[in-house]
Structure formats: structure tokens, C-alpha cells
């Protein structure tokens, strides 16, 4: 546990001193730009637009940061060879993977909180009345970030190329929103091979619809049992696979 915590600590420090702040500055600028643009619109319309656009921006920025940080999490350490000095210490490879993973989740979580603070600041400034559903939607975005990060980490351990890992993860990210369509498609396809392939993707890709509270703002299950359980089970399975892959890796 101590080892994992030490690795979490340096991962957060490394990421915060590294790149994440540049992305956040970009986000803050995008929000300010959007606010000026929507300033021309009057009253309620401005609030609604800033609320929706802001949440979309938070999700996209959050997921992009998560994908890039997760993919480079281990690959960058292998390329820079900094991994030699850690793995030649008495730590288990699983502890290393978990430490890096949780450090990354914590960093992206901190980034998400900062983006939400900027967003809330603007919303409150233009007279938005806060609602609980907003915070649940943000939590849903955080769960999506956890899922996509685990997938990105898994792909990065498969290949030695960051680009290939990013492409695969983005492919999964897009498919993650098309769960219902995939299920519909599999019921319509006659060819058994294609049917099995589509079904396979349906079960393997993460289903973001479970976590998408943004689009069904009035219809949120406030207990969050299904979304949390789904995220936990999916991430744990992915992390076990990551750990197996990593334990066989040579440096």
C-alpha cells in the first residue's frame, strides 16, 4: 500500500508540473470565448447554452486529457527509461500499475474539479440557479473518464506506439456511445460471423449510456448503483488484464 501511495504521489506531481495545466488554460480560454459569444444572446437562452456547452467542453477536455495522460503513463516511462529505476526496487509490477493508474485518475480528477469551478463561476455570474442534477452529470463524466483511462492504459500496454493506442481508445470512446445501435444492428444482421463480431463489440466496449446523465437531466437515478457498479467492474477487469500484460513485459 505504501508503495502504491508513493507512486500515486509522484504521478500527480509529475502530471501537474507537466502538461495538464496547459490543457486547463486552453479550456478556461474556450469557456471565456464561449461566454463572450453567447453574451449576445439574452437571458435564459444564455444560461442554457453556457450550461450545455460547458458540460460538453468539460467532458471532451476531460476525456482527451485522460486518454493522452493514460496512454503516455507507462509508454513515456519506458521510452525515457525512468521505469528501470522503479522496477529495480522491491515493488510488485501490479503495485506500479495501480500507483500510476490512481495517480492519473487523481490528476484528471483535480483537473475536472478546476474546470467545473471555472464553469460554475461563469454560470453563477450570469444568474444560474444551481441544481443537484448538474453535479450528478459531472460525476457521470468522471465515471466515463475512469473507464476510458483504464481502456487507454490497457491499449498502451499492448502496443509500443502512442498513436495506435490513442486511435484504438478513441475508437472505443465513439463506439461507447453507440451501444444501442450495435445491439439493434446485431439483431438485423443475417451473416452469423458479422453478428458475432457486432455482439462481441457490444459486450466488450464500455456502454457510456449508463453514465450519460447529461442527456437525461430530469431522469437521473440518484442512487447511482448501476453506473458505479458498472464502472467498478469494468475497470477492475481491465486493470487485472493490464497487470497480467505488464507482468510479462521486458524492458
Amino acid at each position: 500500500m505504501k508503495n502504491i501511495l508513493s507512486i500515486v504521489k509522484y504521478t500527480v506531481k509529475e502530471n501537474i508540473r507537466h502538461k495538464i495545466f496547459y490543457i486547463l488554460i486552453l479550456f478556461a480560454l474556450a469557456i471565456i470565448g464561449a461566454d463572450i459569444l453567447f453574451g449576445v444572446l439574452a437571458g435564459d437562452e444564455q444560461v442554457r447554452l453556457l450550461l450545455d456547452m460547458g458540460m460538453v467542453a468539460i467532458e471532451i477536455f476531460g476525456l482527451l486529457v485522460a486518454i493522452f495522460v493514460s496512454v503516455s503513463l507507462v509508454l513515456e516511462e519506458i521510452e525515457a527509461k525512468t521505469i528501470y529505476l522503479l522496477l529495480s526496487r522491491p515493488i510488485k509490477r501490479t503495485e506500479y500499475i495501480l500507483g500510476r493508474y490512481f495517480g492519473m485518475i487523481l490528476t484528471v480528477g483535480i483537473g475536472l474539479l478546476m474546470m467545473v469551478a471555472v464553469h460554475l463561476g461563469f454560470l453563477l455570474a450570469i444568474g444560474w440557479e444551481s441544481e443537484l442534477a448538474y453535479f450528478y452529470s459531472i460525476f457521470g463524466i468522471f465515471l466515463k473518464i475512469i473507464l476510458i483511462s483504464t481502456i487507454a492504459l490497457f491499449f498502451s500496454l499492448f502496443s509500443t506506439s502512442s498513436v495506435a493506442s490513442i486511435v484504438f481508445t478513441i475508437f472505443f470512446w465513439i463506439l461507447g456511445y453507440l451501444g444501442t445501435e450495435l445491439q439493434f444492428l446485431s439483431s438485423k444482421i443475417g451473416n452469423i460471423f458479422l453478428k458475432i463480431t457486432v455482439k462481441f463489440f457490444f459486450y466488450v466496449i464500455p456502454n457510456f449510456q449508463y453514465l450519460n446523465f447529461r442527456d437525461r437531466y430530469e431522469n437521473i437515478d440518484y442512487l447511482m448503483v448501476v453506473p458505479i457498479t458498472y464502472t467498478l467492474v469494468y475497470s477492475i477487469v481491465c486493470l487485472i488484464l493490464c497487470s497480467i500484460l505488464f507482468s510479462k513485459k521486458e524492458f
Partner: protein
Amino acid sequence: MNAIEIKNLTKIYIKKQLIRNKKFLAVDNLSFEVAEGEIFGFLGPNGSGKTTTIKTLLGLLFPTEGECFIFGEKVPSLAALSKIGYLPEIPYLYKYLTAREILSLYGTVSGVSGNILKNRIDEVLETVKLKTGKDTRLGEFSKGMLQRVGVAQAIIHKPQLLILDEPFTGLDPLGLKDMRDVILKLKADGKTIFFSSHIISEAEKICSRVAIIHRGKLLRIVKIKEIKPNTLEDIFISEIKQEENKFAE
């Protein structure tokens, strides 16, 4: 007990290609021992398999055949790793952390913590003569300073065995002397030092024995006491040449 025991170690790298995998024999049936408390030089030209052997000892690579032991523990093992301090050829350190932060990280994961670690960090920084920049990010350090931090991280947990990969490469004369002094002090403290190098003169000055390796094969083990002073380089060259001739035939 031997600090290091390598038995019939063979390592073949396999480069996966579309049609046929490419194989490269990096270490070929290597066997030798390093006794506890000695300074042992592992000499060979570039690409002779020195780093591969070291990485196998550290569990970063897995042997194709054969086995390695550290103080009787078969590697890879966490118990073996806890007894090793490792200095890579180039100190691969996190440039976003400061010297203190990086030593704190490596100290903690090696089982040193709390106040003991704090005191130990000051102690090792003193040993490697890093007087300034303890709280500066490593990205701003010169090569020489990085090498000092590299040595500090290798000894932070007081390991019984030091494995140093090319510790003399790229050092200026003062740096060379400091590195030699650190190694000799560690030996005086009862540590075992195993280092790879192609700088023969340094090896002759401080080692009790050296192994000469080429193309992954052990050519000869030389006891420094048993040879005339300043002849190790000639022995090294003649061994390598003989092997080259055999290979050409």
C-alpha cells in the same frame, strides 16, 4: 555466500516481424560468481551483453535459459531487489522532481521511511557531494550533478550489493575520482560492487577481479593481483582479438 551467481545464462532477443521473427543472441551460456564484499568489473566492448546481463539480474529482462541468484535468492524476486542498489548508464531520473523528492520516492519504495529517510537523504547527498540544488528540479541539473543524484538513489536504502552500469562513462577527471572514491568507500563499508565498463584503466585500479565478455560469451576471469600492473588493457585487447579471429574463421 556469493553476492551474485549466474548459471548458464542465455538471453535471445526476438524481434517480431511479419513473416519471420528475427533472433539475436545477446548472452550466450554465461556463468560466473561474484563473492560478497568484492569489487568485480564486468568488461566488454559495446554490445557485448553487459547491460543485458545486468537487466536480467534486476528482473527487467527474463532469461531465455539459465538462472541468476542474488545472495542465494533466485531472480526475479523482491527479496533480491531489496538488497540491490542500481545505477544505470545514464541516470534516468524524473526531471519534474527535485533531488530530495526523487530520493524520498526511491527511499520509500525501498522500505526506508519517516525521519530515518529524511536523515538518510541528507547523508547520501553529503556522500555524493551534492551541496547545492537539493530542492531544484532535476531538469535544470548538469550531467555531473545528475550522475551524483543517480549514485545517491542507488545507495539511499543501504543495499548490500551495488550494480553499476558504466559508472565512469562521460565523467570528467574530477568526476572520475569522486566516483572511484565513492566505490572504494562502499567497499570499505562491506558492500559488494559489480560494475560494467569498457574503461579498463579504472577497473584495474579498483577491482579485485574482472570478467571479460564479448558477443555474450565469457572469455576470461582475471584476478588483478595475479597480473603485472597496467597490463589489464593488453589482456583485454588480446582476448577480444582472439575471439574475433575465431569468429572470422
